[in-house]
Structure formats: C-alpha cells, structure tokens
C-alpha cells in the first residue's frame, strides 16, 4: 500500500536489509543515511534495487560532496510503488577517487556520473563512456573540489568569518567597506 506522503526510510532500516544478504557491505548507518563500503557498493546497489522491501527502482539523484579528507558520492533512491525515499553514501579517497559505476543498473546514472567525473573528478569504473560533460577535455582540474583555485583565493575567507547573526541586525553590516578593496 503506497504511503500518502513520501516516507523517508531511516538509514538503519536500510542497513539492516542490506546486512541480511551482504553482511560486510555496510560501513555505518544513522537515521539519515547509510554508508556503504566502496568495494561491495555495486552488489549492495543491485540488492537494494531488487529487494522487495526497499524497492529502490527509481534513482532520484546522485551527486558528490568534497569532505576534504574524502569525497562522498550521495545517492537518493525512491520507490514509486511504495512511495518512500532513502539516502545512500559511498565514501572514496580524495586523491584516487573511484566508485563502481551503477550505469549498468540504472541508465539514468550515465549522464550524472559523467557530471560528477567532470566537476568532482570521481572515476566510475564500468561506465560506458566516462568523458567530461560540461567542460572541455583539456580543462585543468575539477572545479567543485574545495582545493580548486580557479577563483582568486579559492574559498573566500571573509564569508566563513562572518560574525554570528544577532537579533536586530539587518545584514547591511556584512557589505564590503568600500567597493574594490577586495573583501
């Protein structure tokens, strides 16, 4: 029976289902998401697609987050029949980023994996044609990484050092002092 509102499955529940068949596939799990071991990620994804209870037949989206020490590839899966959604993360090394491709399972992943490869530099072994999607082939580096220095100074230090918001502030005090001074 489908839920009337999309139900977000807790990561612990998803982890239990995966552990029942693949005991070593889950690295950790919390209420929001489940973290998979990269080595057995492909098998676990195939499992959660074909599992009756999880039924993750619809790949909602996939993206990547640079966590400085590692890169997380984030997947959201949904079941249209049961109307639930859950989140899966696969961590990978920051320098040698590589996660097994799920394009053999979902054809919707082909373009999204190319996008992640282009902007974040994660390699997807098993992908039919892993080339850059938006940028040209000779583009130096992968711009969504936090250490990409295309902009002067990379991540602006000024913004992270904003004072804490207090009641009564209008936001005008965060404006640069004078235009062109480089804040």
């Amino acid at each position, binding site marked *: 029976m489908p839920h009337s509102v999309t139900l977000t499955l807790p990561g612990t529940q998803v982890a239990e289902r995966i552990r029942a068949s693949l005991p070593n596939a889950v690295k950790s799990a919390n209420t929001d998401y489940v973290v998979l071991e990269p080595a057995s990620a492909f098998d676990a994804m195939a499992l959660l697609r074909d599992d009756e209870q999880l039924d993750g037949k619809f790949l*909602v*989206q996939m993206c990547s987050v640079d966590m400085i020490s590692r890169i997380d590839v984030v997947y959201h899966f949904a079941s249209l029949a049961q109307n639930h959604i859950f989140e899966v993360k696969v961590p990978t090394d920051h320098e040698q980023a590589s996660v097994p491709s799920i394009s053999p399972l979902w054809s919707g992943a*082909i373009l999204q994996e190319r996008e992640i490869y282009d902007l974040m530099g994660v390699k997807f072994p098993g992908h039919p044609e892993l080339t850059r999607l938006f940028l040209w082939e000779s583009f130096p580096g992968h711009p969504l990484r936090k250490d990409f220095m295309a902009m002067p100074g990379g991540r602006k230090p000024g913004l992270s050092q904003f004072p804490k918001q207090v009641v009564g502030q209008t936001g005008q005090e*965060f404006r640069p002092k004078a235009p062109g001074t480089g804040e």
Partner: protein
Amino acid sequence: MPIKSEPVEVNIGPQHPSTHGVFRMVAKIDGERIVDVKMVVGYLHRSMEKLAEERTFTQNIPFTDRMDYLAAMSGNLGYCLSVEKLAGIEVPERAQYLRVIFAELQRVASHCMATGAFINDCGAWQTPVMYCFRDREKVLDLFEMTCGARLTTNYMRIGGVAFDIPDEFLPALDRLVNDDLPFRFEEYDQLLVGNEIIMMRARDVGVVTPEMAINASLSGPILRSAGIVWDLRKADPYAVYDRMKFDIPVGYNGDAYDRMCIRIEEMKQSLRIIRQAMHDLPGGPHKTDVPLAIRPPAGEAYSRVESPKGELGFYVVSDGGPAPYRWHVRAPSLINLSVLKEMTVGKSIADAIVTLGSIDINVGELDR
C-alpha cells in the same frame, strides 16, 4: 537498384532553432536513419554550484531564476523549501498559498512555451508558437505586477515571499483564470489536440516504455506519458498542495503526442488549483522573520518540487556557516535526456527534432 550510402555525421546545433538554446546533438545518419546520437552540452555552463558556495543562502536565490529561466518561480520555490527544511523554518499560511498560485501560473507559462515550441518543431512554423506566446505574456504580466520582473522573478524568499500581492492582482488573476485562459485552452483543444496533422506527425514518435522511464529516472510529463501516475504535488505534497483538488493527466503510448496532450491538460488542472488557492487565500504576514545571512545548523537536506520540466531537487549541505557547503541541483532537463539515444536511434532525423521538442529541455537548467 538499392542506393549505397555511407554514414554521415550531422551537427544539429548548437545554434539551431529546434534545440531550444545552445544544445548540440551530433547525429550519425545513414540516409535518413539515425545510426548514433551524441549530445554535447556545456555551452551555457555557468558553474552555479561552485558560485553558490561563496554566497550566502539568500544570495543564491537569483541563481535559481537563471537555471530554468522559463520556470523561475518553480526554481525559487524548490530552493527555498530545501533551505527551510534544513533550518526548520515555518512559512506563514498566506505565503504558502501565494507560492502555490505563482508556481502554478509558472507551470501555465512554461507549458505554453513548451507546447508552442513543440508545434514549431513539428513543422508549423511560427503561427502556433505565437498563439502560445500570447497566453504566456498574460501570465508574465501578472509576475511583473507583483515583483517587477517578467522572467527572472527572484520572488520567493527563505521563509515566505518577497512582496505581498498588490491590490489589483486578484481581480486581474480572476479575469485570467476564469475568462481568458479557459477559452484559450478550448482553442488549443480544437486546434492542436484534435488536429489530424499533429496526430500523424507525433504519434509513435519518441516512444518511452514504463520500464525505460523508471530505469532512466525520468520525471515530469515524459514519465507520465508512459502511463505512470507520479506527480510530486500528490506523492510528496509541499506548500499547501495537499489541500488542493486536482487530477494527474497520464498518457498511454508514451509518445510525443501524449506529452503534448498531458501538458495542455496540466495547464487546465493548474487553473483549477489557482481558483481554489484564490478562494482560500488567507490574510496575515507574507514572510516570516529570517536573518538575511541565515546560518542553518550543520547538516544536509534534499527537497524536491514538481517543476514544469519534472522533478527539480535541491541537495543542500551546510557546515553551520552563512554559505552552503555544497549545493547540488537535480536538473530534470539533464536527466530526461538520458533516453535521447534510445528514443532517436533507428528513427529518421526529422523525428529526432520532434522527439527533442517533446522532451522540453531547458538548456539553462541542463548546464547550470
């Protein structure tokens, strides 16, 4: 005597009227048949996801206008919902209703454009597209009346909407949804849906099967044309869609003709929603007090809306700072193109143009 032919590569785009922007399709054709199709995108890549990491949450709202510039309100709404989910902000009732009204007006405007451009691609050069533009203009006039902008509205805010509606808005909206547009949509029914030429041109072109649609993560009218009843306004209601009565039009064959009919029917359903929202529109504030440099707690949120193109999702990661740590947009225009190859290979090159028109991509959203 059969004529021997060699495969030839043909560039469709990046500057071509049928590609709806700077989208390039490299088709390898053998005679009239397409052997292979490769899409080349990125001409409109503005690296919004990177730029957003250096701007505050509020400063990022204008980016969402410039993604899908034909459906700016839907982009605004999706982004604001994701930040509100992350920060746990309650939105006032009046703002919720205004959001529904504007999101549905935007759907009418975007579907008008999609229908007109699709008929254009079918070969009815310029006349039908001007009919659709005429109706879209009236919606844009209402946007201009409310927020001063017609295309890049920048209307929604985190915690509400930027301005309350002016006094003359509701009478104008009433005229639009009760007198003007229903009459126009009747006209569409007579001119387009029952048109034998369009039926012959668009039936069985660009067919999507339900299995293909789910496997390729399609969403929006292209998913519904395959017969799958899936609309996020019903399945995962946001704003006040759970209080509205409306139907989800679905197709049977998954072809380009079905998608056009679904869009026209969805516009009528949008008018139904707007009428209910107008009737129930409560008083009260249009915006809750949210600091301009809002700092949501560290964490992540994924929220999604049914934009005219499909499921528009925003995945926001915060590290507790004033700017998002990571901002990812699930762009329906990009993901709906996953099936372009399967839909076009083996068909004639003229059908590829019709197929692309029926997917209704927006290159601003595709490339971001």
